């Protein structure tokens, strides 16, 4: 019942947003509202704000006029699916790296002090600077018949953005058990590994889930940016630059990759919710 009400309000919010969009488009000046030279409310012309129905209609039409071209929506959907798979792999890498770092930082205070500032610092390096290097390094990998593909570079870059929340959240989670609990483990004379397994990991779950939510959003964003930067084929990133080239003549088309990206984000959030459900046992305290 309350679930439904939340959904209903959420849907109403989206409708409201649509009404505001169209309402402003109808009433606002084509060239936007300016204070001095700065535009403070957006332009309403079709280049800046296409009609919502134009976007929807455009999504139903074929991507290009080439015979047999798929409708735009299905094209976006399969691009989003491809990007999402890459994002998931990046996310998986981020999970492993983030957790390992967290374990290391939990294990050793020195490691914690030494690494944490650099982990924070790592997130101030723009992906666009990193992407070409990663691609470069990865192509140096030629182990046997294994050839590094573009999507792997993209996944690595997505992981670079996504590991941060996991590492930070996980450290906090691993350190969350209260003194009574850690002392108890010590009194049992068990070592770090057993304490980790029996106490710290289960206790960290409650902190891990929100971290995962942030992390998967970061993975999605990282994937798309890296696709653009590296030039990976077939995903939402490539779609953004390709559609931009017809962005002026076919402005509604440019919005569909945004829809695809949002879809990926929502799917990610859904996935995390599912994981949260699976680990419900360890989240009793939250309820």
């Amino acid at each position, binding site marked *: 019942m309350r679930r439904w009400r939340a959904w209903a309000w959420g849907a109403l919010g989206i409708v409201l947003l649509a009404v505001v969009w169209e309402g402003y488009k109808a009433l606002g000046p084509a060239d936007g509202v300016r204070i001095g030279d700065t535009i403070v409310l957006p332009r309403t012309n079709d280049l800046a704000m296409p009609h919502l129905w134009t976007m929807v209609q455009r999504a139903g039409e074929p991507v290009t006029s080439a015979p047999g071209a798929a409708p735009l929506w299905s094209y976006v959907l399969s*691009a989003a699916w491809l990007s999402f798979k890459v994002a998931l792999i990046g996310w998986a890498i981020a999970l492993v790296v983030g957790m390992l770092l967290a374990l290391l930082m939990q294990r050793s205070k020195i490691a914690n002090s030494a690494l944490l500032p650099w982990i924070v610092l790592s997130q101030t390096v723009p992906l666009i600077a990193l992407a070409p290097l990663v691609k470069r390094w990865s192509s140096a990998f030629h182990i046997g018949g294994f050839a590094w593909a573009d999507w792997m570079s993209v996944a690595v870059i997505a992981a670079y953005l996504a590991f941060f929340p996991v590492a930070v959240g996980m450290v906090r989670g691993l350190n969350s058990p209260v003194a009574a609990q850690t002392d108890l483990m010590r009194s049992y004379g068990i070592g770090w590994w057993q304490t980790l397994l029996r106490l710290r990991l289960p206790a960290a779950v409650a902190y891990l889930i929100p971290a995962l939510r942030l992390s998967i959003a970061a993975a999605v964003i990282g994937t798309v940016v890296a696709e653009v930067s590296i030039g990976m084929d*077939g995903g939402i990133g490539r779609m953004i630059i390709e559609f931009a080239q017809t962005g002026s003549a076919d402005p509604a088309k440019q919005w569909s990759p945004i829809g695809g990206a949002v879809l990926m984000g929502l799917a990610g959030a859904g996935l995390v919710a599912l994981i949260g459900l699976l680990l419900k046992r360890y989240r009793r305290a939250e309820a």
Partner: protein
Amino acid sequence: SPTATQPATGSGSGTSGGGATKKVTLQLQWVAQGQFAGYYVAAKKGYYAKEGLDVTIKPAGTDTVPIDVLAAGDADYAISWVPKVLGSIEGGTKVTDVAQIFERSGTTQISFKDKGITTPGDLKGKKVGSWGYGNQWELFAGMQKAGINTDSQISLVQQAFDMNGFLNGDIDAAQAMTYNEYAQVLETINPKTGKLYQPSDLNVINWNTVGTAMLQDAIWANADKLASDKDYQDTTEKFIKASIEGWIYTRDHPQEAADIVAAAGSTLPAGHQLWMVNEVNKLIWPSTGGIGTVQKSSWDQTVDIALHTKDNTGKTIITKDPPSDAYSNVYVEKALAELKSEGADVMGTSFKPITVTLKEGGK
């Protein structure tokens, strides 16, 4: 499906050269589009295969520097503009321009008629669009040649992939490739008339006319390998030959070439694609010294601009003359000789571009 841009692989039937096929990778400087039609055609039509080459064509992303991919050994050949490469060469990258496919520059600066910008000098005090990425040098050279102080007398605007900034009036004069952005504008409805924008609405500054044009799409090869590796020299010649065959076919069959590019995964609308192929043909044909040969005068003009033009960061592309192996006509001349002996028209003297009518959205 969007994954259609599988690396286009020469799957030719007639392997005449005999022996095993040789794997070759070509790094483009952008995504698959008509600009690179010749290579896709050569692959599709089996010209590479005929030379015993198995060519993989790799599109680029925004941050791909083709010449570094080449230098790192991740590609055997790369397509890039000469001014973008000269700096890399001065930085120690050992590459050689082995075939100057585009003889003319496709870069222009376009503006709406009412701005009254007909010469580079008129850009003074205007909001001027620039792509950066090494695409900006002809513009800067042109403005500086007209006596404009590019640090203080214009305001520079970063130009995106689309032409919205130009159409919305944020940019007075925008960079436009004849084969791409210029068409984008002409494919757009003019809200004032309800019809497409017309060429008559626009003023176009063409750097070829101004005299600050620089050499654009060329095939680059690894200089060190060229100097030492006989096999690579051989392959280079074959690669150039097959590529030129592709361009010749493109000249003669623009529509088919456009379709081949689309089949290789380009999502540009068909009309736009055809326009691009046709415009690119104009940059190649008719050829002065045979397609692919570097004209010394054009090279020198490019180098001269690279030595003396400062962009917004206050730096010139290069500070001293490039080494002598920065370009070489040796391989292209051999390739041309072979092609001529096979009866191919490598000059395109009688080339007549087709007429492409642009429709809304490039359809």
